């Protein structure tokens, strides 16, 4: 935020006493600026007139802070402020003057001066004013930095998203081109695999868009939470039932271990999203003739959901990246598995809404267990 943790101050005043005094006070001064409690020191450069200051301003790096006298032998501090400094967002100006009038104060503040120091001032007044200015500058720079970082995260998210949306469109477009050119003859029956593939890719794209909407609603806080008394066990059985067909297609056995009824205070939609994502992952990343087991139990602070698969498992290095947006673990075993890459990051955000925890245990080649604990009243 400050180069080498040094704040560069330019003192512009024709009175030698002010220049030397400020210099000795500020060079011995330290300010703690941020949460790390690191200290900031000061380096002072001083100028006796307008001309030498302006020349230096054009030649060297801008100072962080300027202590600017109103009345200089070859010009007026207010003019310097107006002409050279008011456009510089990253420089803070403190006006010093023996002619402290309200009119001057208003005028210079309008031009962007941060503070106003009346001559003669005590060392404490100077230190107080400089500390205030430095903190102001620190917060301002921090805000700019944060904004830049957010912009770059947003850009990265959007470019990955654009890529993820483009690839199903490309696939469908390619298939349509095959049909248009009757590459496989003029019998519609020859194209049934192609049509099936198109439907799959479009379905995947719809899932991505739905996931994206869920994610942004949760993140922006716009998704209304409806916390009511719900039966987590019945909802689990409903969720499992929805995957019955795809489990059968993958020749998977599905098991539910849950009490007949387990009432909690929670949002039904949120719980359903957690179940759906965990179960669909357990099916997608499984092996033929494997098994998916979903368990639900009451624990002290609420409920515990556990979904176990007998699938391909995770490597240790992949496990760490699992909850990042658009992370899809790419290797020879997962290449042909489709997904939005947003499922688990949504699950994590919902779990956070319940101040819950997620535990992932996995053995590469053997299977994975997701264990989610939600804090809620359970009955």
């Amino acid at each position: 935020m400050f180069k080498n943790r040094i704040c560069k101050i330019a003192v512009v005043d024709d009175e030698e006493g002010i220049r030397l005094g400020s210099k000795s006070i500020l060079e011995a001064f330290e300010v703690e600026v941020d949460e790390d409690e690191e200290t900031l020191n000061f380096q002072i450069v001083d100028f006796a007139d307008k001309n030498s200051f302006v020349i230096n301003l054009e030649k060297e790096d801008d100072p962080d802070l300027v202590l600017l006298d109103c009345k200089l032998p070859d010009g007026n501090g207010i003019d310097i402020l107006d002409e050279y400094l008011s456009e510089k967002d990253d420089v803070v100006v403190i006006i010093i003057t023996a002619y402290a009038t309200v009119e001057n104060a208003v005028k210079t503040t309008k031009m962007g001066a941060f503070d106003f120091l009346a001559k003669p001032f005590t060392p404490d007044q100077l230190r107080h004013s400089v500390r205030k200015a430095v903190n102001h500058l620190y917060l301002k720079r921090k805000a700019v930095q944060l904004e830049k970082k957010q912009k770059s995260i947003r850009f990265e998210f959007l470019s990955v998203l654009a890529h993820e949306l483009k690839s199903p469109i490309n696939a469908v477009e390619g298939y349509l081109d095959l049909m248009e050119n009757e590459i496989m003859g003029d019998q519609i029956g020859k194209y049934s695999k192609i049509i099936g593939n198109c439907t799959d890719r479009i379905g995947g794209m719809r899932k991505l868009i739905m996931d994206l909407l869920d994610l942004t609603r949760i993140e922006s806080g716009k998704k209304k939470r409806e916390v009511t008394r719900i039966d987590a066990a019945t909802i689990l059985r409903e969720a499992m039932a929805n995957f019955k067909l795809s489990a059968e297609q993958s020749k998977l056995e599905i098991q539910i271990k849950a009490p007949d009824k387990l009432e909690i205070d929670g949002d039904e939609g949120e719980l359903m999203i957690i179940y759906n994502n965990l179960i669909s992952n357990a099916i997608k990343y499984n092996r033929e003739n494997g098994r998916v087991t979903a368990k639900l139990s009451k624990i002290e602070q609420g409920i515990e959901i556990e979904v176990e698969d007998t699938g391909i498992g995770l490597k240790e290095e992949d496990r760490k990246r699992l909850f990042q947006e658009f992370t899809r673990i790419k290797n020879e075993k997962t290449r042909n598995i489709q997904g939005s890459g947003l499922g688990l990051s949504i699950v994590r955000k919902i779990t956070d809404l319940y101040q819950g925890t997620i535990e992932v245990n996995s053995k590469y080649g053997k299977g994975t267990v997701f264990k989610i604990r939600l804090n809620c009243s359970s009955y």
Partner: protein
Amino acid sequence: MDKERKTALIVDDDEDYLFQMEANLQRLDYEVTTASSVQEATAIMEENRDVDLVLVDLMMDNMDDGFVLAHKIRRINENIPIIMTTSVAKDTGYEFDSVKGENREWLKIDKILNKPVRFEQLKTVLATLK
């Protein structure tokens, strides 16, 4: 060596795309082999150096797999026509279109095509390569 049909190798990690290009090239009378990774493709090339055409996707498991593979193929067979396909030409930072022919010293690729590649386009490009 006389061969009845020309052979092509398509390398891409997108199953849909492999299916489409395979169908297109078969229609253009090629015998087609597919591979979905650099390793797989290199193994195929080492076994059969006389492939008549290679289509390589730029981004597979890694950002630059297509370049890596193209280099490997060049080392195995200097003269084989290589077509690179990509859906991210604009994002790579390489100025594909301005680096043409002899000037493309860093890697001799015969043609870069943006995905999705259409049948008519493929047909035209292959005609100019002959």
